[in-house]
């Protein structure tokens, strides 16, 4: 991996700061023009209204400026639409370690994801229940563990 790509891939998500934009699958590509050396980064939002996108763009430009590319361009694409299936295994492990239950795989035969048992990220119990279908960010719902009683965030399968 080039140092340019490494710099971009290390940008953390401003709302879930334990994972990077690469872990989440928000980062789609990093290209360097072989002639001009200009870097073009392509990203995609998790949700259309995600308010973190502006900060992510600024953070990418700042990270690239620090490695000698102050004129980088950040493009936003919407197709193919982001899916939680793009969150890497490393990203899922980091979410779980931070007390955020990672999403289940998305069922492919319909637009509405199938709800599978969500394991408590703290004690591992499958005895959990949904408290709120929406959470602190667009991509999460609020759950509670019936075994250890802890509430926790769950990234909704999308």
């Amino acid at each position, binding site marked *: 991996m080039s140092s340019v790509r490494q710099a971009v891939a290390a940008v953390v998500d401003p709302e879930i700061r334990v994972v990077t934009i690469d872990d989440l699958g928000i980062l789609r590509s990093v290209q360097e023009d072989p002639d001009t050396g200009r870097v073009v980064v392509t990203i995609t939002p998790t*949700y259309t209204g995600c308010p973190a996108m502006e900060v992510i763009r600024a953070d990418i430009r700042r990270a690239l400026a620090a490695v000698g590319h102050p004129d980088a361009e950040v493009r936003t694409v919407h*197709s193919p639409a982001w899916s939680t299936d793009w969150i890497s295994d490393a990203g899922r492990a980091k979410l779980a370690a931070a007390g955020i239950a990672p999403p289940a795989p998305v069922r492919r035969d319909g637009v509405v994801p199938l709800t599978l048992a969500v394991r408590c990220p703290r004690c591992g119990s499958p005895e959990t229940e949904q408290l*709120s*279908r*929406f959470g602190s960010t667009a991509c999460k719902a609020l759950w509670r563990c019936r075994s250890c009683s802890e509430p926790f965030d769950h990234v909704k399968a999308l």
Partner: protein
Amino acid sequence: MKGSFAFTLALGDDALIAAQRLAEWTTRAPEMEEDIALANIALDQLGAARLLLSYAGELEGAGRDEDALAYLRDDREFRNCLLVELPNGDFAVTMAKLLVLAAYQVPLYTALADSSDERLAAIGGKARKESAYHLDHASLWVRRLGDGTEESHRRMQAGIDQIWPYADELFVAWPDAPVDPATLRAAFDETVTTVLTEATLTVPEAGWSPTGGRDGLHTEHLSYLLAEMQVLHRAHPGARW
């Protein structure tokens, strides 16, 4: 107006006005979870509105961006359906509105995802996932209230009866649009009839069906909504956070 510009503008206006109305619930919803839910749904609608209005501005080619379209048009220039500008009413009315809106937006965005227009296809492919969650949410509430107590049933039925006439406007034929809304009516009817039946509610009889939003002829409610939404931008042109 050119077909795809007018259509993209209408869809963008639907989403924008729905977002503004839903956001009025913030800090006023019946419970904390619902406060968060309605704000999140409003945010999804706003996200779709920004993409649609930005693209509409490009299609028009007159140099108007999303902000110019959202903040610098008067009521007669808005093309949203009447449904989304109606006052929120009680929680049951809001859920009736959300059920009708989402049951229309899901097949609309799904059809748009297969459109030959790449930009609209990308927006449709993205927004349909979010709308499916809105539909799920509204359906849960309509079932819970309809099949709840005598009082919740009465108010949910009243909400449906009040909103129902405004559904027809969503499906008025628009043959030269990228997706003709008339083709979405069967899917809408099936979804809504299933939910209302499960909720022990009665599907209202067809009757009075007001239209005009797509031609810029709105209810008096839109002007008040726009006054609140646009005042800052108009009082301080070019203001930045």
